[in-house]
């Protein structure tokens, strides 16, 4: 692989567990930051979706964590790391429709089990590392290639 171009922009946000009222607004700030950096609209759109789904998972399922945004000339990366509880079967949570969302979250329109599939669909690579009792790290990479999207 060719050497990585050094990052030009890096920012992080703490995400509190169960705080649904604030949830979603890291995603909006990420969107704003990407637009102001001149990132291509198609990439901003994909990053927004990835960030929202990752952010919601931190809020709904984790004991808190952080989101790191790294923007390089060739890619946008989003890192979601949390303090637990971890995921026992990473292949299972990647499956469309798998969800452990409680009823109160389902009533609010969460829990379709399509969050991680949406993250995969909108990134070029989604890596998930998890250890039960420790926590989960997800890294989404979105390449800034010329994109002739809709």
């Amino acid at each position, binding site marked *: 692989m060719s050497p990585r171009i050094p990052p030009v922009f890096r920012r992080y946000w703490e995400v509190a567990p169960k705080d*649904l*009222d604030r*949830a*979603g*607004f890291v*995603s*909006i700030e990420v*969107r704003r930051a990407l637009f102001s950096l001149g990132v291509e609209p198609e990439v901003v*759109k994909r990053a*927004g*979706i990835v960030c*929202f*789904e990752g952010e*919601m998972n931190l809020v709904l399922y984790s004991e808190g964590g952080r989101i790191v945004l790294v923007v390089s000339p060739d890619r946008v990366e989003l890192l979601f790391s949390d303090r637990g509880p971890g995921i026992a079967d990473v292949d299972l949570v990647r499956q469309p429709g798998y969800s452990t969302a409680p009823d109160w979250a389902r009533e*609010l*329109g*969460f829990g*379709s089990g*399509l*969050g991680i599939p*949406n993250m995969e*669909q909108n990134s070029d690579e989604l890596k998930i590392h998890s250890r039960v009792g420790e926590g989960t790290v997800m890294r989404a990479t979105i390449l800034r290639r010329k994109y002739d999207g*809709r």
Partner: protein
Amino acid sequence: MTVGELVRELGLEVLVAGDLEADVHGGYCADLLSEVLAHAAKGDIWITHQKHLNVVAVAKLKEIGAVVLVRGLRPPQEVTDRARAEGVTILVSPTSAFETAGRIHRALFP
């Protein structure tokens, strides 16, 4: 057709006016947020029963033309405040999701 023209034609209530001059080409009906994130298109009218804060974020991220709450559902004020701050249009339709979607479809594709 613009959002404003649709509002006038159907007599919808405007709770928050974002860009009423935005062009509308279609719509999407869903209460599941991930469905909207996956399948709604830019400028779509989003017909839903959801009326909490995360709706504003999804609408903003997807560049939704207007959120239409059905059956006269009204969001709490923090939602309209946030929608105003983000420039997200929120409309209210008195009828069911089925009827609202039907009327919007007829207006867009006469």
